[in-house]
């Protein structure tokens, strides 16, 4: 198991993303806010001719944004055919996984369990492996489609 991982900090915790999911790391320029979207959608920003949806990972987990300052660098990831820029506390390093993701007794806590695949040992210490799709789906899973459609 020598999968490459990108280590990031979200809300003060050490997390890992699969390196092949991370397309690039960009300096976040101006973000155009998107009114009437959930808080975790910070807005959209342009990367060359592409537009990226900026996800505030702190709010996507359901944490208070005031507590954790974010870096001006963001990780660009692709999920479900769309590109996102993940606003995180910081992007640390690229490292190699030293095992398979596993669970820990007691779990990770409700917010983290939702988005975590498991704990993974890396060359630079343990990190929480993130399930991208779950992270991007935001704190509240979609429900109430009836209202939207009607």
């Amino acid at each position: 198991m020598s999968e490459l991982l990108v280590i990031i900090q979200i809300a003060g915790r050490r997390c890992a993303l699969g390196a092949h999911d991370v397309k690039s790391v960009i300096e976040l320029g101006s973000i155009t806010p998107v009114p009437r979207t959930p808080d975790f959608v910070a807005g959209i920003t342009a990367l060359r001719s592409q537009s990226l949806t900026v996800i505030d990972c702190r709010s996507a987990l359901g944490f208070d944004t005031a507590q954790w300052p974010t870096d001006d660098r963001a990780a660009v990831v692709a999920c479900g055919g769309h590109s996102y820029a993940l606003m995180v506390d910081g992007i640390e390093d690229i490292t190699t996984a030293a095992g398979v993701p596993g669970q820990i007794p007691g779990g990770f806590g409700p917010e983290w369990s939702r988005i975590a695949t498991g704990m993974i040992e890396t060359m630079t210490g343990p990190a929480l492996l993130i399930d991208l799709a779950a992270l991007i789906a935001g704190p509240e899973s979609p429900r109430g489609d009836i209202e939207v459609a009607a």
Partner: protein
Amino acid sequence: MDDLLADFIAETREMLEASGGEIVAWEADPDDRTRIDAIFRFVHTVKGNCGFFDFPRLARLSHAAEDALADCRAGRREPDQRLVTAVLAIIDRIAQMIDAIEAGEDFPEGGDEALIDAVNGPGEATADAAPGAADAGADPLLHAPASALLERADDFISPAVRRADAAGQRTIRLPVELLDRVMSGVSDMVLARNDLAHRLRQAGNQPTIDGPFERLTAILSDVRDAITRMRMQRIETLLSVLPRLVRDLSADLGKQVMVDCDGGDVELDREMIETIRDPLTHLIRNAIDHGIEPPSARLAGGKREIGLIAIAARQSGNTIGIVISDDGRGLDEERIAAKAIANGLISAAERAAMSRDKILNLIFEPGLSTAETVSNVSGRGVGLDVVRQNLEKVGGSIKVSSQPGEGTHFTMQIPLTLSIIAGLTVEVGGQRFAIPQGYVEEIVQATAGALDFTRMGETALVTFRGNRIPCLMLDEVLGLEHPDITARDFTLVLLRLASGDLFALAVDHIHSHGDLVVKPLAPAVMKSGLYAGSTLLDDGQPVLLLDVTNIAAHHDLVSDGRARVLQPPEEDTAAATAAAARAMLFTDFAGRRSAVRLELVQRIETTPTAAIDRSGARARVVIDGLILPLVGLPDAPLDRDKLRLLRLSDGTCELLHAVREVKDAILLTEALTPVPEDPLVEALTLVDGEPVALIDAHELFARHGKPPEAAPGMRPRCTLPDSEWARTILAPLVISAGYEVVPAGMARPGDLEIMFEDMFEVAEALGRPPAGPVIRLRDHPDDSQGGSATIYRYDREALFAALTAVRHARVAGGPRA
């Protein structure tokens, strides 16, 4: 028909190419069953297709080959070299004929019989002839004519011509993914070009770069058009199969249904057509199966025996709307509700609170099929929930509306993602948004009063061209901070929806319009239902494209057969406006609620305090480069940076009235009580139970009005003595009296001339007195000459009087040429 023929040719060619390998393999091993099957399928298809097109020769040839191969497949005949050769000769012949058909030429007569005999005749002899003998005998016999035929064919149609024709029509199949990549590459090129254009504009004119850049732009737009067309297909291809489908289905179900397709020329992305093929078919199946009643029931219900299904496609902006309507029995609200409750989809309490529309749209929820029996037509486990899912996958939507006993309308909205559309960029709350140009009917810029802006409950209405139109505040729609609407100038974008409904969207500014490359948005953003995509502006800033249809739907502005626009009752409004004058209500700096008749108000101006001059006895303000009188200022110095002013006009004079706050346009319905003690107030009246002073416009303009300056060309002209004194001291006085000072050389006959007495005398002595009016000046206050015709040069009063007298004389004398 031509399309079909081209399809036939392309298909046959494709099969020929594909079966080329099979034929070779078959030749090597005549007993290989799978090869026989493949070739059989080919000739069978050709035979079937030619029957359709009336190509009897092709049909006979393929039929002969098919028969022979069928015998082999059935084991009635052993395939041998002779048969293989004969079949191959036929296939070659088919290929030549296809070329001839494509080129539109006649294929030379004759030769077919020999080939057909070769397949049939010698085959019957195979039983007695030894394989070796057959080989020896048949080969020269059959191959010679076949190759001779080939040569003959080539003689008639020269190879060069044939190749050229074939190349002109040649088509290839490409994976859509590749097209997508090219398409998005071109989109990116457009963006890069826009960015470059922006930078070039900033850098200024550079002829050496501008030329090639123009060429690049032209080429790019050509390529873009081609690429767009490459992906587009008329929706006709989808609709043309429907009459057949409807016919078959209705025959199966014992119903009589007619289908009416409209809008076949709407073009849609090829892939999008594939995506909606199944949903559309499904909806039509449903309509025939569940919607349209059997003929007897229809007759009993007073309808025509034959049911009607209408399919209409419309493009508006970046969406295509497809409406599928039937005139059947309509949806059963109660049954849908009961089923939804039974399935736990909604509770009984929720049901009670739901409108009919909402209940009907439950049919798109999973696990809700109201069909009591599962027929072989619909109800095969593919429900409307799948239809909706498929449409939502591509960012589309579906809705249903239905009247019991009258029919059902399904409305599909399909976006044209990854396309380039013309759009309008607007600004609201400091943020920019794009609106597809297709929706924009008109842009109106006016004051709240001029548009008769009113709020009915929470809904705003404006009156435009005699129609009351619902008005959405974009900042409210988006939940942005917004100032009081009545206190600002409107910019309204009137939008016409696919359904024909008109509504107004109030924005702060209009920015620009141009081609926008629309990119899809992430699901989390799409969920808001407000946006259709995003796009990048020239400067690389991303903006959101508003989903106009959805926004309108959220605010219940989309009607289904409802009256299109609310017509204001003509006589009522006429009577009301006749009875009640309208006025602009405001608070002045003394804190008094005042009003001024709306007819006088030109505009509401906002001006920086710096533009106000209070040095003179009367305050003045600079607006649009004009110095105009300003009234209503407080005595105390102004404590704000900006000032709101009402620009009033009596038709010729303009003045501005400073206000603390503009309230609203009101109707003066209450009685007007004169206030004789205050000449500036015409009357007091009540508005919402509070007193309001109506400003006396006559008095206001009499005191402060200032006619706008005549344009320079219209002013009387005057020449002055050529001296420093005249230029610096006399000229300003003459100008303030309303003259235009011109150099002596430019004077026209009839212009006023001001000259010193001594100069006048010289001119007179020379016999060349000035032709026009003259004002003569003297240097000494005392009239030494004794005449009254001269004016002392510092006698301001007399000079003014003389200037005014000359001007009036001129006006009285009528305009000069």
